[in-house]
């Protein structure tokens, strides 16, 4: 298996303060990886680095076989303007951007793909609803439908199950397993350790620095979790330049 994503001693952060410090490692193509860690551990920062929204302070992130614009990325806090007058169908159809671009028509095949995506996430019948009328869980389902249409090799999900009911959560987990079955690479930041243990074969435990990375069973030990929790959250304003 080839690496799709490689962290080369990468440091990511804000105003020179590292939020992810000297991370090394590789994500194999087709891997299903949970990224776990306390609040402020650098999970979202790491993902922003992966999708190219944040430039590394040092080191690099190497992508192979996929351009940074071809990653399907679900941010933790989507900047969606829910008052915008657009319906669910059009919103999901945005997932076809890479296929259609500025002018490409949306043909019969694509219409079917949109309908299938809506059906997969259980939103059939919601096509003409304005996005402002959706509940939080329905909105998340809609965003998953859009991710489906993006048809990406690498999918990055930042805390996709926050404030989501168990039914929706298990539906969306099925979808993630399905992606895994299709050999797509999936990275997901999660807080629920039980979900990680049940569904994710590989885990990166992050606490600004890498605590452990590997088989979920070996990574999520009580010792490792305790170590991650001890991590200091606040930046030190007086910190000196890192020598490493």
């Amino acid at each position, binding site marked *: 298996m080839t690496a799709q994503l490689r962290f080369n001693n990468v440091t990511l952060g804000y105003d020179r303060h590292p939020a992810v410090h000297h991370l090394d490692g590789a994500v194999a193509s087709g891997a299903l990886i949970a990224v776990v860690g306390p609040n402020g551990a650098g999970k979202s920062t790491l993902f922003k680095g992966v999708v190219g929204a944040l430039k590394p302070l040092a080191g690099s992130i190497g992508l192979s076989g996929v351009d940074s614009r071809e990653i399907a990325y679900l*941010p933790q806090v989507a900047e969606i*303007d829910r008052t915008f007058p657009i319906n669910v169908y059009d919103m999901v159809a945005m997932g076809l951007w890479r296929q259609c671009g500025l002018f490409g028509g949306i043909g019969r095949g694509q219409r079917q793909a949109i309908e299938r995506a809506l059906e997969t996430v259980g939103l059939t019948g919601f096509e003409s609803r304005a996005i402002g009328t959706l509940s939080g869980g329905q909105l998340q389902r809609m965003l998953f439908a859009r991710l489906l249409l993006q048809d990406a090799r690498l999918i990055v999900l930042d805390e996709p199950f926050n404030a989501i009911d168990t039914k929706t959560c298990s539906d969306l987990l099925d979808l993630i397993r399905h992606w895994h079955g299709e050999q797509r690479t999936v990275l997901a930041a999660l807080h629920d350790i039980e979900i990680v243990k049940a569904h994710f074969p590989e885990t990166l435990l992050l606490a600004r620095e890498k605590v452990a990375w590997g088989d979920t069973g070996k990574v999520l030990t009580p010792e490792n979790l305790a170590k991650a929790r001890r991590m200091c959250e606040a930046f030190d304003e007086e910190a000196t330049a890192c020598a490493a």
Partner: protein
Amino acid sequence: MLYETLIAPFVEFEFMRRALVGVCALAVGAGPIGVFLMLRRMSLVGDAMAHAILPGAAIGFLVSGLSLVAMSTGGMIAGFVIALLAGLVARTTELKEDASLAVFFLISLAIGVTIVSLRGTNIDLLHFLFGSVLALDDHTLLLMAASAVLTLFVLALIYRPLVIECVDPGYLRSVSRLGTPVHLIFLALVVINLVSGFQALGTLLAVGIMMVPAAIGRFWARDITPMIAIAVAGGMISGYAGLVLSYQTGIPSGPAVILFAGILYALSLAFGTAGGLLRKLFPGRHLEA
């Protein structure tokens, strides 16, 4: 009687026909721009831009008098420069677009007033501050029609990314680099339409035919495409009715157009099917499901 009131003025007088063509062209271009400004919560940006254009037009006026070309060119240059600077500052620093725009248009206004005071004539300046929709010559009409066509053409070109950029800018950033260019192109369209509008309605009221129809559209449609169509129709109706009102009562035509748009807005606010007050106050019994 109806013919005398509603149609005769346009049959009899060429300047009324020109004015009607002019306001219709304005409504076609400014309507969709206004809808996007409103949806991007930039409703007052149009106003700020109009102020930013004024000094450029004033410089043009001082250089070559009441020349359409000079004033339009000056206005467009000033507008583009301000829009570009404000847009770039907003996208590269923590300062939000409205704040950076406020700073730039105030500076621009100050520069403009300084230049005007150096040369001293401000009687003619009133002419384009408040517009002259009843005195549109061929060149002005051509300019207005050309900007309407250009606006529709460019909007069609950038429609998808512009909509995505409005609803979910983060998504557009993650799939494409078009976000910033599309935003700047959009601001350029705002400037073009304001320059086109100030010939007829003046710098201050030109924003009116952009924003008021957009607000009307919001009360009748829940989807952006019909909203744009309603805004354009609302602008055209206001233009026509405002001209008739002005012809029959003698009130100045620019304000009459915007006043009529205001009346349509009040009606929409009360009776609109998408969030109008009447529907809010008397929603009817709740439904089964």
